């Protein structure tokens, strides 16, 4: 089966005065058709930059290396005109802040229809009908009225639903959702997650869900990829990540996931210290300074991502936790 997305040894560097900032370091991951893969990591872990590279949206001056194949075809480094044949139609992305993703001075209906006019060469009349259906599909109430509204007239949750509706217009094979609910209330977050879940079942589209919140990702993802300091440090089925995390970093992240059904703890769990800056040179494991299990070897020799306990579970750790 050709993967929906195949990222191999992807590196993203931003040159600066003192050398380069390495945002992504030789990251590899695969998304199968109709699969939902959760990408989890802290700010600065490279999770967003990985997928900005996939979408060809890196800021000017970024250097990339490696390979990104979408539906079997190499898309890394394609010219914008080439990339636009799939980007926005078969390969789509939604962002944390739906307000800045929508054009403030155009009515919602026009912004939706424009996608179909450009990508599917529909007439405006047809496209507007399809836009209405798209809003109904993501359960926007009073969809007809919403089409004539401007983005600022909608609530944050409504805007995000418009973005999801827009991203689904051309029946994408892969939707990348980058922190789609971080700016929203818990109740609205739950509803957006429910819509994503429903869309998956309806359309067999693959989803990449990027978040710093492992608890949120676990509710939707089939597989979870944990990133730290620009690298993939663990990758496994969602149940394995939750139940048998091998990398100490993943285990620490899991401790931070709040669970209201458990008794209140005296101290709120958190990760001590900070993630290393992306400009620092690497010697050994990037997590070693924050890791309670780190030994001498961790500080000198960088652990490679390897199969541990079966081919579907990989971790980059010299001393993985007992499964």
């Amino acid at each position: 089966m050709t993967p929906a997305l195949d990222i191999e040894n992807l590196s993203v560097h931003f040159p600066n005065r003192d050398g380069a900032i390495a945002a992504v370091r030789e990251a590899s991951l695969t998304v199968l058709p109709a699969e939902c893969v959760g990408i989890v990591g802290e700010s600065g872990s490279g999770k967003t930059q990985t997928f900005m590279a996939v979408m060809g949206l890196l800021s000017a001056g970024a250097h990339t290396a490696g390979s990104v194949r979408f539906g079997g075809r190499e898309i890394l480094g394609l010219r914008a005109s080439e990339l636009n044949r799939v980007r926005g139609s078969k390969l789509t992305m939604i962002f944390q802040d739906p307000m800045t993703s929508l054009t403030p001075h155009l009515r919602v209906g026009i912004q939706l229809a424009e996608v179909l006019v450009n990508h599917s060469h529909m007439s405006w009349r047809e496209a507007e009908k399809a836009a209405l259906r798209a809003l109904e599909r993501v359960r926007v109430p009073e969809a007809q009225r919403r089409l004539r509204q401007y983005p600022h007239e909608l609530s944050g949750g409504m805007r995000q639903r418009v973005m999801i509706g827009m991203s689904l217009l051309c029946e994408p094979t892969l939707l990348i959702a980058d922190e789609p609910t971080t700016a929203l209330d818990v109740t609205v977050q739950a509803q957006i997650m429910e819509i994503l879940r429903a869309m998956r079942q309806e359309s067999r589209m693959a989803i990449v869900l990027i978040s710093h919140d492992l608890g949120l990702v676990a509710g939707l993802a089939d597989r979870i990829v944990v990133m730290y300091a620009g690298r993939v440090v663990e990758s496994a089925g969602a149940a394995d990540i939750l139940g048998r995390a091998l990398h100490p970093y993943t285990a620490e992240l899991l401790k931070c996931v709040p669970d209201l059904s458990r008794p209140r703890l005296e101290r709120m769990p958190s990760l001590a210290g900070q993630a290393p800056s992306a400009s620092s040179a690497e010697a050994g494991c990037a997590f070693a300074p924050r890791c309670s299990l780190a030994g001498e070897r961790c500080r000198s020799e960088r652990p490679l991502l390897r199969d541990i306990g079966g081919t579907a579970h990989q971790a980059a750790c010299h001393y993985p936790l007992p499964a």
Partner: protein
Amino acid sequence: MNDPLLSVTEPVLSVKSLVVHFGAFPAVQDVTFDLRQGETVGLVGESGSGKSTLARAILRLIPATSGSVFVSGDNLLSCRPADLRRRRRDLQMVFQDPLASLNPRMSVGAALAEPLKIHEPSLSAPLRTARVMEMLERVGLSPGMAVRYPHEFSGGQCQRIGIARAMILRPKLLVCDEPVSSLDVSIQGQIVNLLVDLQKELGTAMLFISHNLAVIRHLSHRVLVIYRGRLVEAADSEQLFAAPAHPYTQALLAAVPNPTRVPAATPIAAVDETPVAAAREGGCAFVDRCPYAQDQCRLTAPSLGEIGVRHAAACHRWREVVYSWGHEARNSRSR
């Protein structure tokens, strides 16, 4: 976590029947609560519920329409400007966006020294510097960082600086407006634990605003739930999380993602679709989203009434609401 002393000391903050209107729109309606020394009251609600407006009106950063705010016995809302300025040292605030709330052109040391210059002008420069260094260390930053600028710090570090700036005057009341919402889950705990430690040390009373129930549960002694400008439930923290008596509180609790169970489909009613301004006349404001609503709820608005020990709810059907929550919990345990 409940300190028996809490109930005998005089409140540091006493808010009575506070009302805030923006034009004709009632943003905060008839809010009353007390906050004592060393106590944390958590204020929870969705965006647009009026929680930040309430906090700002308490600190007189925006004008209140009516009501009173007593701080150590004096009504802040009728204070003269000169008195208010003097009072400000006892009333400090930590904001949601830690970077935006720091002056980008001021070094961290200067930002921390400024409140001391204003409120303790008699302090000599060396003593002031000593206080700044001590405070930096207290929030987990090294004194050497005093010469750096806000953009050189991570979000978590900026929030530590914001907390240091607020606490350096040892205020009686600290208002925190979503202080961890923009931070990674993995470091939210660091900031929450820091606030709890500082509070224990200095006896500060804390009003903590958040839409994050896990954080609210962690540090609040008492929790207030606000919906469309009105308090709909108030209870001691453990009681609120064990036996929520308002359907809105239950909707908020049910929406918290839990990795150990796939969430049941969220009832659409749990999400606000109607514009806030379109709130109905008469009747309960939550009625359109409420799975328990009956005719009575459409006709008369329930008032916030005592339903148990230190537990109040504004719901006609609170008995059924509490029972069904307990029932669900029993079922999910036996499964």
